[in-house]
């Protein structure tokens, strides 16, 4: 027997203990240092390998470590278990996940996004028609009938999804009826900037399965209004907060925020503000993420705009996200990007601040593998094209199919390309593979030019793990 490659350890010297986690089994233990040292003993559970006789107490401890996956037969066994896990994630039919982009249009002119209400972008951005929505409904009904999943998760996304209310209403009602027919409960969420999130919208959607909305606040009032204004420069913070007050209690509310080095310092003030609001108790998640800049500032486009994708010398995006509201797709720290490291550290700071203010927030360790690795998670673009991930909806060559079943060579090639994805095979023996799977495929594609090359935020995982360990210890 030997220590699993998926073991993580955080020493807790002040207690002479160690926090242990196995990312494949998700087991978490707090053990005394002498127990942790058993993991380093070669042939740990067999005294014949070491020449040492294990005491009954040691044998009992070794049994617990083995039961929870911290000790395995050999490295090959770990690899087999990883392969089995990735196959399980890929083929799992218990959930049908649909992310539906009603439009790529947006009514915001975010400072860091070259899409949205800038120039004539909205004039040409795709918007789902009623006819396409009817076909989309039919296709999803077919998937529900075929899979009979235990859960059906439907997410409306964009652009700004509330700019196409007729399609959202029609599909919600139709799919609520379909999910009732197959006996699968539908859970709807909306990812919106919050400007058009009225009581009327929420009241209309709740009976058909609306469970929660996610809105974005980019710092305190002044910072948010600078980062996420309307086209004419008007601020949006007050209107969003007013909307949140009106809809709170009707459905779950999650708050997100996108920070960079210029805005991160304003987030504690935002957290203070949120804590004081009556809707604070209804917030089911608060999670802030970095806007990751690409490392070639000289190649950036319009002055003052932080591009989210690489742009050429003419300022045009090389691989545009096409209006999909993805806020950060730069690569990670694998290539020693100081900016990323700084942002990773700031994310840790904001996660701790969020917890300190009493809001639920992701622990930063339990992440992927994301939908791109799941066969029954689909993104549907406004024209009915199918994608493996919302990050590719602006790039037609990355469409992996169409809801009308048309057969096209380029889509088939893309489908096969996504089907073969396994960037984690280049991650060596990294313990985070089961919760990372090689990082964001969109980031790999946009910044490295190859979806199958991993992007790495190990530093971020490490700091999140330390926070998780100390939080766990203080709660027990």
């Amino acid at each position: 027997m030997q220590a699993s490659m998926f073991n993580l350890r955080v020493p807790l010297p002040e207690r002479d203990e160690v926090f242990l986690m196995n990312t494949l089994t998700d087991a978490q233990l707090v053990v005394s240092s002498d127990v942790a040292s058993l993991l380093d003993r070669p042939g740990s559970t067999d005294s014949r390998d070491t020449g040492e006789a294990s005491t009954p107490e040691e044998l009992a401890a070794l049994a617990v470590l083995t039961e929870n996956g911290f000790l395995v037969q050999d490295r090959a066994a770990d690899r087999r278990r990883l392969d089995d896990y990735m196959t399980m994630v890929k083929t799992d039919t218990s959930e049908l996940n649909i992310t539906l982009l009603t439009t790529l249009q947006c009514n915001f002119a975010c400072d860091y996004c070259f899409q949205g209400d800038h120039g004539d972008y909205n004039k040409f951005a795709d918007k789902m028609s009623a006819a396409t929505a009817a076909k989309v409904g039919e296709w999803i009904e077919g998937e529900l009938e075929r899979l009979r999943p235990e859960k059906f998760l439907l997410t409306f996304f964009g652009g700004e999804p509330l700019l196409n209310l007729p399609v959202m209403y029609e599909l919600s009602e139709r799919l609520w009826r379909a999910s009732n027919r197959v006996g699968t409960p539908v859970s709807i969420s909306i990812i919106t900037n919050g400007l058009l999130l009225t009581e009327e919208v929420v009241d209309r959607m709740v009976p058909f399965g609306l469970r929660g909305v996610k809105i974005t606040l980019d710092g305190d009032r002044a910072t948010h209004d600078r980062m996420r204004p309307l086209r004419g420069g008007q601020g949006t913070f007050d209107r969003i907060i007013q909307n949140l007050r009106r809809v709170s209690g009707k459905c779950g509310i999650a708050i997100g925020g996108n920070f960079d080095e210029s805005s991160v310092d304003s987030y504690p003030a935002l957290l203070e503000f949120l804590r004081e609001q009556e809707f604070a108790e209804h917030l089911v998640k608060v999670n802030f993420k970095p806007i990751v800049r690409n490392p070639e500032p000289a190649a950036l486009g319009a002055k003052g705009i932080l591009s989210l994708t690489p742009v050429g010398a003419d300022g045009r995006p090389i691989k545009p996200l096409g209006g999909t509201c993805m806020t950060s797709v730069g690569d990670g720290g694998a290539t020693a990007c100081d900016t990323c490291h700084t942002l990773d550290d700031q994310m840790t700071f904001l996660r701790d601040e969020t917890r300190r203010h009493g809001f639920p927030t992701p622990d930063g360790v339990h992440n992927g593998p994301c939908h791109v690795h799941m066969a029954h998670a689909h993104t549907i673009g406004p024209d009915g094209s199918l994608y493996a991930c919302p990050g590719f909806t602006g790039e037609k060559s990355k469409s992996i199919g169409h809801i009308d079943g048309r057969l096209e060579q380029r889509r088939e090639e893309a489908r096969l390309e996504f089907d073969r994805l396994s960037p984690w095979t280049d991650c060596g023996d990294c313990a985070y593979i089961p919760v990372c799977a090689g990082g964001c495929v969109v980031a790999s594609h946009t910044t490295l030019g190859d979806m199958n090359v991993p992007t790495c935020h190990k530093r971020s995982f490490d700091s999140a793990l330390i926070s998780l360990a100390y939080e766990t210890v203080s709660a027990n």
Partner: protein
Amino acid sequence: MKITVIKKAVVNAKPSGYCPVYVDDFPATKK
């Protein structure tokens, strides 16, 4: 030899979220 079990091993543990790092998502699935 002290062990406190915080969370036992889960067979076929599922991913906890959609895209918690990059996409703005609403919490859907808990690990």
